[in-house]
């Protein structure tokens, strides 16, 4: 199994506002604190490479305290020059949120060239709230996503210049310099929430599918749908096409790990993902079929998720090294996920570094049958 270190870069704070997204005033953001946090977080990512993690993940979110990385490519650029081995996974760029998605083709190609071909390029639509922050019409989200993805993939693979005449994006000259180093292009991943349309789209293109903060039964169901879709498209999914993002807490014993998880991981759900209800459901962001599925079986709001639920439903992994190994085996052996992305939070920078070390020494080595395999070979393109 491959391990990727995933950072949200949260601005951890407590507040009584109805929403941590879109409307939480940025007067709460202290740039001095932000400076310290960015450096701690980047140190953690660099340390993850040192400890043996296979990949480092950054992502894009806007106008919130949950993740202060509106441009993941900026953070990826900082990592490119400070690391030498680990993959740098941008999970992802919000394609429909850009007015000029050719910039994504350019920026990711720059990163790929500069990093010597270590970049993984996530394509996402952006979560619901981003449509309130950017002004992009959520009813166009899916169509803009497909069109921008098509444009970027063509820009990376077809010799330029060529003209592109889409519904949302139009260019007389598509001819980006540089071209990516990886051929035919950097692996593309699809972090998603399990809509059947995206599953089919990703499976058809062999793009790995990443499930973020999802109950384990739902992961199993969507993985099943993805594997079936791969078979329908004439091939069997590699384990490295099935990726999961789950927070991990490891400590000397289960009780201590539980205490840390309750205090620090639940912040992500209960405060970080607290959202004014309309921001969860902008019109047209989901297909009507997806809306119906959700209405018939409404998931709990993250802000209302209790630790007991998160624990029972497998939203988080916590425990002693032995317990964490057992819980991870569910992902590796039962779900057959090839890659686990996880962030860690020990409550302080130092505690987080210690936790990372414990995980690298006492958990990771037990899952290294595939140490010599390149997880990006033959997938994502």
């Amino acid at each position: 199994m491959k391990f990727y270190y995933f950072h949200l870069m949260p601005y951890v704070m407590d507040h009584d506002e109805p929403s941590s997204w879109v409307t939480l005033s940025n007067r709460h953001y202290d740039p001095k604190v932000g400076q310290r946090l960015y450096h701690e977080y980047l140190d953690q990512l660099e340390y993850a490479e040192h400890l043996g993690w296979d990949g480092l993940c950054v992502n894009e979110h806007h106008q919130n305290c949950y993740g202060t990385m509106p441009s993941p490519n900026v953070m990826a650029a900082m990592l490119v020059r400070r690391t030498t081995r680990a993959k740098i996974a941008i999970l992802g760029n919000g394609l429909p949120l850009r007015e000029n998605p050719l910039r994504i083709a350019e920026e990711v190609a720059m990163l790929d060239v500069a990093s010597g071909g270590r970049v993984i390029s996530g394509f996402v639509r952006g979560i619901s709230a981003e449509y309130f922050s950017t002004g992009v019409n959520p009813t166009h989200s899916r169509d803009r996503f497909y069109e921008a993805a098509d444009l970027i993939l063509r820009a990376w693979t077809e010799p330029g210049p060529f003209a592109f005449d889409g519904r949302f994006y139009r260019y007389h000259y598509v001819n980006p310099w540089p071209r990516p180093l990886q051929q035919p292009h950097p692996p593309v991943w699809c972090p998603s929430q399990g809509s059947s349309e995206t599953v089919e789209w990703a499976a058809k293109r062999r793009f790995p599918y990443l499930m973020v903060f999802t109950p384990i039964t739902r992961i199993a169901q969507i993985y099943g749908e993805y594997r079936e879709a791969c078979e329908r498209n004439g091939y069997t999914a590699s384990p490295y096409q099935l990726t999961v993002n789950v927070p991990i807490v490891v400590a000397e014993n289960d009780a201590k790990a539980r205490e840390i998880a309750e205090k620090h991981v639940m912040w992500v759900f209960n405060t970080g993902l607290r959202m004014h209800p309309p921001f969860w459901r902008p019109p047209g962001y989901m297909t009507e079929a997806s809306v119906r599925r959700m209405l018939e079986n409404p998931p709990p709001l993250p802000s209302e998720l209790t630790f007991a639920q998160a624990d029972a439903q497998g939203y988080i992994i916590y425990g002693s090294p032995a317990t964490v190994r057992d819980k991870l085996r569910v992902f590796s052996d039962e779900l057959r996920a090839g890659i686990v992305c996880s962030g860690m939070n020990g409550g302080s920078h130092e505690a987080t570094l210690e936790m990372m070390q414990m995980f690298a020494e006492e958990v990771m080595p037990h899952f290294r049958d595939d140490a010599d395999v390149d997880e990006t070979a033959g997938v994502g393109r």
Partner: protein
Amino acid sequence: MAAERRAQEPRLENLAVRGTPVHLLSGGAGPDLLFLHGAGGAGRWLEFQTALAGRFSVRFPSHPGHGGSPAAGWIEHISDLAFHYLDLLDTLRLERVHLVGASFGGWIGAEIAVMASHRLASLTLIDPVGIKVDGWIYPFLFGMDVPEIVQTVFHNPMAALALAPPDASPETMALQYRQGTALARVSWNPYLYDPLLRRRLARITTPTLLCWGAHDRLAPLEPCGQAWAKDVPGARLRVFAESGHVPHLEEPAAVADAIVEFCGGLP
């Protein structure tokens, strides 16, 4: 009495307008009148429509994606809705109609009027949105929960009950989502206006009545109502003292009377 009540029941028809299915309510007798509803008003034949039906032959279609009319993927811009209703007039063989539009429906009505005033015997716009007014940004209803929306749209919150969904079933919630989607498709950004419409208002040659709620907080009389009154040639402005954004729901009889009076006074 019973016969009279039956006469007021609207007839329901399902039409195809150039291939686009339309759920249409019709009722009353007299000169032809087309009513274009606002967000959330699809299929709600209420006191206002009943009052108009006493003097007019009222046609009340649901916009595509609203009420009983299925969504139409081809509708991408507010002008698509305007052409859709010109096509509806052709389908119904109505040469000229009195057009009454409320809020979002008023926006569509204004778009029709700048294209084809000759198809309109009169134009009544009830607290329309649709133009950019300097110094005013329409409050963003898509970012509001229901209590905030009611607070913004209604002066008399009890009037909102008439538009309340019948239940919270998945079916009803899916319809609400579909309606929001159809609305957002043409109005998310720019929000509730067409940048090209305002300077075109000068093309309107139809006699125009503007009905405005004195307490409209979505599109306030000052500056929005005043901007329409200034830019629609010869428009008459009537203000309804006890109304917010939806006077036809808040003071239905008074608004219907104003329309009857206005149309009765036309040459």
